[in-house]
């Protein structure tokens, strides 16, 4: 397994990112911290606006400096990459840390053959000759499972299928042998059979190269089988963080639990009544005090509307959650029972008998 003294590939400490908007500053990422070791995969789960992509872009230094402000530390192999000079950082982004995006069609240049796009980084960062970069591009295409790589090298992105384009994107990202690969919704635009192929491919490459990987997705089921640890984000904050297996066996944060229960599953019988999360996602530019999930939370108590719960763990283990009344604990269940008895939560959410019971089957 992992040597505990080995320097972690990625350490993120108290990362905060805000965007300047017409309605004032918008805190997209609020105090995110985690550690990722070599060869391991971290899943980042959240809905749109939860800050998962903004976290990735903050780590990768991809946000526009004019309209966004990032604080906190990002250590790549022990080196603080946010304090590097421009000349130094040029050979970090895209080289030591690379990224794969959701939509391969908009990330690839439509007027340059894919072979040249894969070789571009090698020519610039590794100073390879055109011929050597071409040979390497061909090897990379083979590694990502593209049949007939020789022919594909000369083709343009529009000539490839969606799955193949994503494979090309992965080849571009892997060209300079990164230590860290961040995949932001890499399969969301793909069909389910192709999604499996791409996730298998990322898994295999991570193992072969012992890369650290961050897998960002809105889909809890993608995270379940593919990651070692998971963080769940809501309104820019980490609300729950745990080893994957532990998370799925005991979800502590009411949001994680509600999110999980609201997903239709193929193993459930047809016409199973889904549990819904009342209300709608928070408006980040108009967050009040207290826990951002409180207005939609069945556990909410007066304290939740005043104070923001810190991310903390009780069992001395790796699992942590940001909730005063976590699910599956005495205080949490008592809070839920009290709210149900009152018919509403402290934040004013009405609890219909059926909606709160969760697993009511139609």
């Amino acid at each position, binding site marked *: 397994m992992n040597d505990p003294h080995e320097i972690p590939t990625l350490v993120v400490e108290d990362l905060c990112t805000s965007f300047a908007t017409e309605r004032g500053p918008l805190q997209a990422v609020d105090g995110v911290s985690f550690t990722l070791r070599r060869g391991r995969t971290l899943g980042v789960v959240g809905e749109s606006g939860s800050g998962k992509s903004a976290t990735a872009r903050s780590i990768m230094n991809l946000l526009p400096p004019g309209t966004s402000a990032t604080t906190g530390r990002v250590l790549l192999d022990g080196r603080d990459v946010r304090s590097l000079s421009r000349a130094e950082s040029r050979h970090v982004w895209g080289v030591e840390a690379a990224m794969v995006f959701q939509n391969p069609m908009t990330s690839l240049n439509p007027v340059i053959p894919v072979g040249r796009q894969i070789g571009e980084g090698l020519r610039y960062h590794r100073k390879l000759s055109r011929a050597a970069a071409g040979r390497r591009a061909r090897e990379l295409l083979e590694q990502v499972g593209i049949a007939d790589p020789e022919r594909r090298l000369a083709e343009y992105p529009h000539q490839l299928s969606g799955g193949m384009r994503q494979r090309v994107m992965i080849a571009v990202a892997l060209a300079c042998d990164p230590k860290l690969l961040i995949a932001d919704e890499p399969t969301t635009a793909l069909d389910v059979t192709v999604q499996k192929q791409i996730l298998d491919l990322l898994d295999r490459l991570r193992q072969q190269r012992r890369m650290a990987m961050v897998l960002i997705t809105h889909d809890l089921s993608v995270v379940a*089988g593919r990651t070692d640890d998971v963080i769940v984000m809501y309104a820019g904050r980490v609300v729950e963080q745990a080893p994957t297996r532990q998370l799925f066996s005991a979800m502590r944060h009411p949001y994680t639990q509600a999110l999980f229960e609201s997903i239709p599953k193929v193993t459930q019988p*047809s016409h199973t009544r889904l549990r819904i999360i009342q209300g709608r996602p928070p408006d980040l530019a108009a967050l009040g005090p207290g826990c951002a999930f409180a207005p939609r939370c069945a556990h909410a108590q007066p304290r939740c509307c005043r104070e923001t719960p810190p991310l903390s763990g009780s069992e001395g283990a790796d699992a942590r959650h940001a909730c005063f009344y976590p699910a599956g604990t005495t205080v949490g269940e008592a809070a839920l029972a009290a709210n149900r008895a009152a018919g509403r939560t402290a934040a004013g959410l009405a609890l219909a008998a059926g909606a709160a019971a969760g697993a009511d089957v139609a």
Partner: protein
Amino acid sequence: MAGVGTAQLRPSDEVLLQVTDLYVEHSAGRRRTVRAVSGVSFDVACGETLGLVGESGCGKSSTARAVLQLPRPTSGTVTLDGTDLTTLRGEELRRVRSSLQMIFQDPLASLNPRRRVADIVREGLDIWPDHRCLDADDGGTPAPAADRVRAVLDSVGMDLDEIGGRRPHEFSGGQAQRICIARALMLDPQVLICDEPVSALDVSIQAQILNLLEDLKGLYGLTMLFIAHDLAVVKSVSDRVCVMYLGRICEIGPTEAIFDRPAHPYTDALLASVPQIDAGPAVAGDVLTGDPPSPFDAPTGCRFRTRCPRATERCAEQVPELSEVSAGRFVACHFPLTDEPAHPADDDAAVGHSTTPTSP
């Protein structure tokens, strides 16, 4: 897969909507033709939800549009309550269309950004004023349009006074989809066609809309054609499911039966690709390799054969017809995955390479 045939159709007096031998082809210039739908037949009984599922390019949306005659299919018939829509013209077709309504994937893109919600939802009534009665049997005095708008918005969980004067951009995706659903229900449609109604929505909102559709189905006695690529979503709302691949039907039958025991190799592969929360670490292995072939030059015979682990020469030569494998279940495959105890090795060969565990 990719089969033709009409064996799966029930007697036409038992069904509300019947589609027979539907072909949709588009000319793509240079004498090339996209064969989007090739010989699809299915029916939907009154009050039933039929789920159409398949990957992109399988023809599920083309099928839905052909049902609405948007555009008219290349050939085939679409019969609604005994009337063949493909023979109707002009005013007759316009009249029938009010009983077929559709909701789309991107709710914000399907609402006119310059109009107010109350006007958007009421428009159908302005065009067809005789739909004002809430219940056909309440004596016949038409209720004012505003009452009808209020009642329908109420049934999708929205309040006319609060939102009627607002415009679409003020709403989130989930709310906009509720408005689209309200608009579709305004004219008491006989059939509601939902084309990926939740795939653009966040997970927590998706459940709200799915539950709402289930409630409305009970409330209005809706018959639904529900299209989605997400198998779990389709399973949760459908009574029967129709799996499509490259313009043809692979299998059709009761939802539970198909999900418990897929009979077509494609359905099997599709189900095996769905990431599952409770299944432990994902098992690597190519359930299906490659991408679906282009609809410009679909394979001969069975269209799935180029990716099918069971394909033989026969699959290249003969288009499989849908045939009944058990009560109400029809499969278009020469070698369906039925549980014949005599050939257990066959089943292993078909799915075996997908079950080889890799080290975690």
